[in-house]
């Protein structure tokens, strides 16, 4: 069953802070992520299903999957001095692949791909004690053409049904967002007002409206990573979001959000 759902920013400046980043802001985002960790410990999940968009780390141009599932025994990645290795919940991962394909989603699976920081920056801060196994789910956000928001939402709906039918207590974490434009001339001017409008929609429990956004709109607003959130929204239906924080830095809208679910305590 699905007992918890969260969205967490993953900008690497939250893990390794250069002097360009406001320390107090970074610590406020850490505090919000600490709330997620404590909340996860209260929810007692058996595994964490993490939806993130690979930053051209595991998947370069030799093969570009729209949607992928990590189904090995473990997964690992490195960033600067950090070395991460996580156990994968193999039974759950395999069920997601098999049932996902049965439901019409042509998923790539990997038993050996590297893990991108989009997965482990949130886990660095929110992994409950004791650590739980994970299932990483990749959604292509950086290499056009990406899956449409409608397709992400449909995949999330199927994923939610698969997770609800499982015997374990499961939490879903969408990694990424909100507005930012890395590598472009818009880097220092994200669309914070657009983000705030989106958060109001989510707080109202109208997340399904995001399935109607276009890829062009997400690109224009610096929100290509919102595909991970939209996937999660397919799984949580009309649940209302609770915003733990929205912290706009000079280049990034950092949000931490929970969708409290009926199955939770």
């Amino acid at each position, binding site marked *: 069953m699905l007992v918890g759902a969260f969205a967490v920013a993953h900008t690497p400046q939250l893990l390794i*802070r250069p002097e360009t980043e406001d320390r107090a802001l970074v610590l406020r985002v850490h505090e919000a992520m600490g709330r997620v960790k404590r909340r996860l410990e209260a929810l007692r999940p058996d595994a964490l299903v993490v939806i993130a968009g690979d930053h051209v780390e595991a998947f370069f141009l030799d093969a570009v999957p729209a949607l992928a599932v990590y189904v090995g025994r473990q997964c690992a990645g490195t960033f600067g001095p950090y070395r991460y290795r996580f156990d994968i919940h193999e039974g759950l991962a395999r069920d997601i692949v098999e049932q996902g394909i049965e439901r019409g989603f042509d998923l790539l699976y990997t038993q050996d791909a590297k893990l991108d920081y989009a997965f482990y920056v949130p886990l660095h801060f929110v992994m409950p004690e004791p650590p739980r196994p994970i299932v990483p789910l990749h959604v292509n956000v950086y*290499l056009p053409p990406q899956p449409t928001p409608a397709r992400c939402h449909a995949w999330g709906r199927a994923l939610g049904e698969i997770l609800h039918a499982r015997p374990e207590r499961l939490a879903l974490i969408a990694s990424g967002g909100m507005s930012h434009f890395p*590598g*472009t001339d818009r880097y220092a001017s994200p669309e914070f007002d657009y983000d705030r409008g989106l958060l109001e929609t989510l707080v109202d429990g109208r997340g399904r409206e995001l399935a109607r956004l276009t890829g062009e709109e997400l690109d224009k607003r610096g929100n290509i990573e919102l595909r991970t959130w939209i996937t999660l929204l397919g799984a949580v239906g009309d649940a209302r979001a609770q915003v733990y924080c929205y912290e706009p830095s000079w280049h990034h809208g950092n949000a931490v959000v929970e969708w409290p679910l009926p199955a939770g305590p």
Partner: protein
Amino acid sequence: MSETAHYRFPPSSAYALNRCLYALKSDRAFAERFLADAQAATSDMELTHDERADLGRMDRDALVARGAHPYLVFMAGLRLKMLAEPGTLEYF
């Protein structure tokens, strides 16, 4: 996706360039060799003279105009900068 999008389909003409940027981003040993001697580090990469010149300057606009992915340019440049000038970083 329109041609004015921030992130566009990476043309195959820029494959070698993107391959080099990917290595700079994700392969620390390669990035160190590139910093020591960019010409030698990229000698087997099938890059043109002009591509090498733009890489040497990490000229974002020129690289993106050639079809380089903006995120790869961004993170490759950041990794090189962190190697060359570690500066003051706070690790959490």
